[in-house]
């Protein structure tokens, strides 16, 4: 960033590329949510694609912030990563228990 607070051309290009990459993974995750055949497969889409999508968005935004803001952005991404993987497992466990119960009731 120069004295006037403007980003250099290279920084702007890199930031834009990272933001577009993030957008791509968010769109792919959303399409996966609609296309994948069952709830377990849909969990794959939201967990993995959105985690990297948010990481790319955070990396792209880091060009605009100071050190403290960037550290906070990084921490927020790590928290989302951790909560995403744990909640994915909990949702999958709940869905499997429900599925098993329905199958048990049928037999």
């Amino acid at each position: 960033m120069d004295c006037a607070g403007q980003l250099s051309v290279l920084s702007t290009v890199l930031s834009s590329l990272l933001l577009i990459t993030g957008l791509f993974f968010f769109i792919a995750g959303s399409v996966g949510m609609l296309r994948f055949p069952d709830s377990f497969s849909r969990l794959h889409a939201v967990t993995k694609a959105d985690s990297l999508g948010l990481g790319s968005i955070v990396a792209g935004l880091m060009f605009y912030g100071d050190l403290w803001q960037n550290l906070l952005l990084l921490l927020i991404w790590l928290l989302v990563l951790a909560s995403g993987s744990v909640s994915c497992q909990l949702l999958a466990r709940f869905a499997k228990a429900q599925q098993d119960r329905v199958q048990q009731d049928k037999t």
Partner: protein
Amino acid sequence: MSLPQGGSVVICYSALSGVFALCWAALTGARGWWFFLPLCLLLLLWCYLAKLSLPPLRFKAVPGFLLFFSHQLILGAWDVAWRALAPAPRWAPCWQPYAINLTQAASQRLLASMVSLLPGTCAVNIEAGQPDVLLLHVLDGNTDWYKGVAALEQQLAWLLRDETAKGPTA
């Protein structure tokens, strides 16, 4: 999870307080510290009573683990993205059991959480047995999902000091 002994208790819970404070600062814009203090004490008390603590790490293994995890995270996201956007369906979901070699319950839970960010796998449950089995949902049963999970388990065995760094058995 074993409770740390002696002076390490102070270090461990100080580190935990630091992590909590950092999270609070990030989520609140570094405001409301008077509310945070009693909340932090309650959290530490809960961690103490529930025997939760930060697992001891082999710091030499941290860079390798971060590199491996970042690589797998990118591969996992790319894998699911191209399957979602491919014109023809490219999935064959199935259930797969994975025999866990990690011995500590906390390490097994960590493996189960991290597996969900690997390409094509999502952990569902840990079934107790000899050995304990991790039930996985695999997005495409025709892919070599086992290799990635075994590699992550090996990395965790190197990273966590409570685990012996031996290779998984197929």
